[in-house]
C-alpha cells in the first residue's frame, strides 16, 4: 500500500498490497494510519525485481533539524507507506 500527496513520496508493502488492495484506506487504518479524504492513495504491487521505498512526508516541527535528527524520525513503517514519520518530540531551539 502506498500513499502520496502530489510530488511527495511513494510506495509499496509486500504482501499487503498483494493480498488486500481492494480497500486500501481501510487497510491503512489497521496500521493505525488515518488519511484525509483528499490524500491520493497509490497501491504498488512489486511484482518484479524493482523495489520501492517511501520517502516520508516531512513532519511539521522538524524545521532546523540535522540530517541525523531527521533520520531518527523515520521508521520502517514510514518507509513502506503505512505510517507517517513521527513529529519531533521537542521543538529545536
Amino acid at each position, binding site marked *: 500500500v502506498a500513499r502520496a500527496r502530489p510530488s511527495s513520496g511513494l510506495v509499496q508493502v509486500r504482501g499487503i498490497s498483494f493480498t488486500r488492495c*481492494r480497500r486500501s484506506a481501510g487497510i491503512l487504518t489497521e496500521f493505525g494510519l488515518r488519511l484525509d479524504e483528499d*490524500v491520493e492513495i497509490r*497501491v504498488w504491487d*512489486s511484482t518484479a525485481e524493482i523495489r520501492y521505498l517511501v520517502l516520508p512526508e516531512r513532519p511539521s516541527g522538524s524545521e532546523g533539524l540535522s540530517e541525523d535528527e531527521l533520520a531518527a524520525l523515520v521508521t520502517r513503517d514510514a518507509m513502506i507507506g503505512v505510517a507517517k514519520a513521527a513529529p519531533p518530540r521537542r521543538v529545536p531551539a
Partner: protein
Amino acid sequence: VNGMHDMGGMDGFGPIRPDGGETPFQHRWEAKAFAHLLACGALGKWNNDAVRSHFESFSPSEYLTMRYFERWNVGLIGLLIDAGLVAREEIATGRADPTAQKAAPPLREQDVPSVVAAREPYNRAVSRELIFANGTKVRARNVHPETHTRLPRYVRGKRGVIERCHGVFVFPDTNAAMLGEHPQHLYFVRFDGTELWGDRGDIRAPVYTDIWEQHLEPV
C-alpha cells in the same frame, strides 16, 4: 501457476496485525532458514525465479499453514533433492549418506561476505525496440501459465496505462524453468481501482504493478 501464493483480491484473512518490530526475524530458526537458502543458492544449481517457482508448488493447505520462513526450509529441501544434492533417504533419517555426491565447489566461510554482497541484477544491457510508449493504453494478457509467472491473476484481461518503462529485464517465466533469460522490456503499469475491482474498487487508489512486455497487448 494459479497457486495459493497469488492472493491479490482475496478476502477472509482477517485484519492485519502489525508486528510493530523492526527486526526481520521473530525466531532464531528463521534467521537460519534465511542463511541456509542463501548459502545453498551460492552453489549455483538454481536461480531466484526457480526458487519462487518451487515455493509456489505447495498445495493451498500446505502453503497457508506454513510460516513464511517455514516455506523457505521446506522449499529448500525440495530444491536440494531436485538438484541431486540430498537424497530423500537422508532427509527421512536425518543422517548424511557418506557416499552421497557433494556440492563442488562448496561455499567456504571466507567467501560468504562477497557472495552475499554480490547482487544478482536482473536488468540486461541489451537493446530492444520499445513496443509501448508512456501513456499507451494496454491490456494485461489473459494468460494462465501452468508454470511460474509474475503476472498477478487480478490484472489479467484488465486495461491499464503505461506509466514508464523500467528498461530491459530477465523474463522470470522462462528463467524459472531454466529455459533462458529472454530479456524484454519491463513496464510500470497503472490500473484504476474500479477496472480491477468493479464497484468495490477504491477510486482513491489506483494499483501500479510491473509487467513484462510479453504479458501486455495494445488495447
